[in-house]
């Protein structure tokens, strides 16, 4: 008798892409199932055959040289153009820029917050596209939290609020504000909530600040350790409640 559900996991297991919990379950099954063990051995034999029969290639030196030359040619062309044609208008622009710089730096600080909010919202929307939501799909906080080990320079707090109606869906790596961040996904009925967090140098803020954009609600606050952004299409009141649950879990 065969076990299609276990066989389907063997590839991911051998590729090192199976979650730790599932891997343990599969190992336990393999230990007592000769059919699945035979299937795994066949997959291992295939890997060995591919490694010995299917060669990797080296790019020919001439190709490498052509690519390098093309890059240099383009770089040189751009520089000559800059030097010969652009220096006069550039000088004028530079003096105008000095004047503009003063007012710009003031405006910039305000804009930085908006840019960050846009960043977060974009990541949220992208995560909702097929296949982008989670890198580690598990409702077990003890699976999701260790998954970040070696992927981030901090270990994000992960909770399961299933008892409060906000089950953990999974986690993924994301890139916000010029750094890799943890993105945790929680569910509420058919709605998804993205929680972005990364270490904050600023220290704790007050209650969450709210923003509404393109039909999504966003909440932002910082704790003593982390800067938090929470985004969802969930109703504003429920999202506030979720933030409250999260903040209570965080406070010692």
């Amino acid at each position, binding site marked *: 008798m065969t076990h299609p559900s276990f066989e389907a996991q063997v590839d991911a297991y051998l590729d090192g*892409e199976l979650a730790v919990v599932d891997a343990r379950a599969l190992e336990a099954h393999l230990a007592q199932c000769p059919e699945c063990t035979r299937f795994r051995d*066949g997959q291992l034999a*295939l890997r060995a055959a591919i490694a010995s029969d299917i060669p990797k290639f080296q790019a020919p030196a001439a*190709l490498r040289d*052509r690519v390098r030359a093309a*890059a240099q040619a383009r*770089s040189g062309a751009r520089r000559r153009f800059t030097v010969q044609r652009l220096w006069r208008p550039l000088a004028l622009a530079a003096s105008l820029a000095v004047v503009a710089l003063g007012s710009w730096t003031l405006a910039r600080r305000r804009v930085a917050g908006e840019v960050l909010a846009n960043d977060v919202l974009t990541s949220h929307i992208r995560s909702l596209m097929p296949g982008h939501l989670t890198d580690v799909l598990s409702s077990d906080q003890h699976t999701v939290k260790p998954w970040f080990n070696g992927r981030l320079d901090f270990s994000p707090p992960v909770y399961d609020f299933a008892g409060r109606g906000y089950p953990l869906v999974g986690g993924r790596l994301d890139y916000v504000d010029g750094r890799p961040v943890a993105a945790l996904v929680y569910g509420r009925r058919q709605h998804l909530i993205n929680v972005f967090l990364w270490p904050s140098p600023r220290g704790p803020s007050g209650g969450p600040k709210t923003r509404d954009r393109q039909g999504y609600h966003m909440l932002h606050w910082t704790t003593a350790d982390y800067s938090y952004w929470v985004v969802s299409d969930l109703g504003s009141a429920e999202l506030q409640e979720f933030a409250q649950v999260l903040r209570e879990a965080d406070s010692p």
Partner: protein
Amino acid sequence: MESSELARFEAVVLPHLDTAYTLARYLTRNAHDAEDVVQDACLRALTYFDGFRGEEGTSARAWLLAIVRNTAFSSVRRQSPDAVALEFDEVQHSGAVADVHPEAALLRSAAKETLGRALDRLAPEFREVIVLRELEGLSYKEISDVAGVPVGTVMSRLSRARARLREALT
């Protein structure tokens, strides 16, 4: 492109040139076309490079390989539009085989084929996941970035491709 940009381009692209060439080689199935594809792809990469900052969690390797892959697919289609199904259909191609000629199927059953021949005969969408995973060791996420399909599709293509290659071994 400033000279610092040039240095960055060389640092990002050149280390992956062997991988790019290997992928192109298996997608075009010929050394000459593979060189053309990689060179074309690098010129495109140069054009888009200003926009590449390593955002969106896409590795430099996956970013470059996606360009190589798309260049190879359009080159193969241009040369022999009939040989490659334009609208790739997961169900129709569930056998994972791109046989154009029925006699090829007969030949296959008559003589045991080599693994290399079996790989060459896979549809390109299946060939590329084998090359990226088995030869180059990309993660499922990276392969999904290169091929522009969800991770689940990467997994099902890998398992079908492997099943087909196992037949060649028996």
